[in-house]
């Protein structure tokens, strides 16, 4: 029990938030842009589609925006950043002993149900992130840092909807 407890001791949220804020500040100072995450996944999808069906990728109005002849879509800032996220999280998880193949869910639901909901949530988030041109980190967090109207709207929409629909998903979590 004691080990279990240590494993799940996280930083004080204010401390984490402070460091995250400093990081966003640093990112804007260095590169003039914010953080992001879903962009890397978009690059991944574009690369896969381009590799499997190059013609299709060029003909599709959306992929073709990101397919460039001279440069792989994977060679982008956000992909490198996402790689860094993986490394950083691995270091942090390793230091705290949180690494392991696990599936996390409420004891009330089965593992398969959890995975199904994760997949469904992922699909929704994937679509939503494209419609809104950014996810919680790209649009909401980085957008708020520069007082972007779109960022604030996206943030309010995400969390507002979250609270509204939370009731229907309560079994998954509590």
């Amino acid at each position: 029990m004691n080990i279990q407890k240590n494993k799940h001791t996280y930083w004080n949220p204010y401390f984490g938030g402070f460091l995250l804020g400093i990081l966003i500040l640093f990112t804007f100072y260095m590169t003039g842009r914010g953080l992001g995450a879903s962009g890397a996944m978009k690059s991944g999808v574009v690369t896969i589609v381009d590799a499997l069906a190059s013609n299709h990728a060029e003909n599709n109005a959306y992929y073709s925006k990101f397919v460039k002849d001279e440069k792989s879509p994977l060679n982008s800032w956000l992909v490198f950043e996402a790689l860094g996220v993986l490394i950083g999280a691995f270091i942090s998880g390793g230091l705290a002993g949180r690494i392991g193949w696990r599936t996390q869910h409420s004891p009330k639901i089965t593992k398969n149900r959890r995975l199904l909901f994760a997949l469904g949530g992922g699909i929704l988030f994937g679509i939503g992130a494209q419609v809104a041109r950014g996810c919680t980190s790209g649009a909401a967090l980085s957008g708020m840092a520069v007082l972007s109207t779109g960022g604030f709207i996206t943030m309010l929409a995400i969390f507002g909807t979250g609270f509204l629909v939370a009731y229907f998903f309560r079994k998954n979590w509590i």
Partner: protein
Amino acid sequence: MGPLIPNGVIPYEWNNIIAIIIGIVFGFVLEASGFSSSRKLAGVFYGYDFAVLKVFFTAALVSLIGILYMDYLGYINMEQLYVHPTYLWGAIIGGVIMGVGFVSAGFCPGTSLCAVAIGKIDAIVYVIGIMVGIFIFSELYTVFQPLYEGYFYGNITLMDSFGINRYWFVFVFTIIAILAFVISDLIRKRRKKIFY
């Protein structure tokens, strides 16, 4: 002076290296704050854990105040920063879809990457889901296109849309955030046996 890379103070070639470094810190902070746990993330919607709210608002405040001070002191030119463009209905509908996805899966893309790094299987499934979602969006792009490209208001900030003084806005925002922190602590429900 700043931002450094767009102004050529640091050669452009460094961009990707800096991206990795920033990513490492980003991942480390997110993971160490507990964002690799979907149940901790979902806690904000059920009132048993407000870490998301606290981290999120603290980060927004620190970066916002920091950028304004740096802009004031001339270290950074706020005009040159990338302002997320405002596509009104795209932002709202996209946000609503993401909100449902968030509650359903308990991750957002950034945090799911952290969870993938420490071997959470649900996060791996989630990332696959996101890629499927992006695939669906791209295939049905013609359907989404009016929403994706319409209602464009430019790269506007709140000052442009409401004509408020940004310093006053930040001040009010700070007060709201602090109140939110206090209230979240007061209404937090203790639930034991929640395994993050």
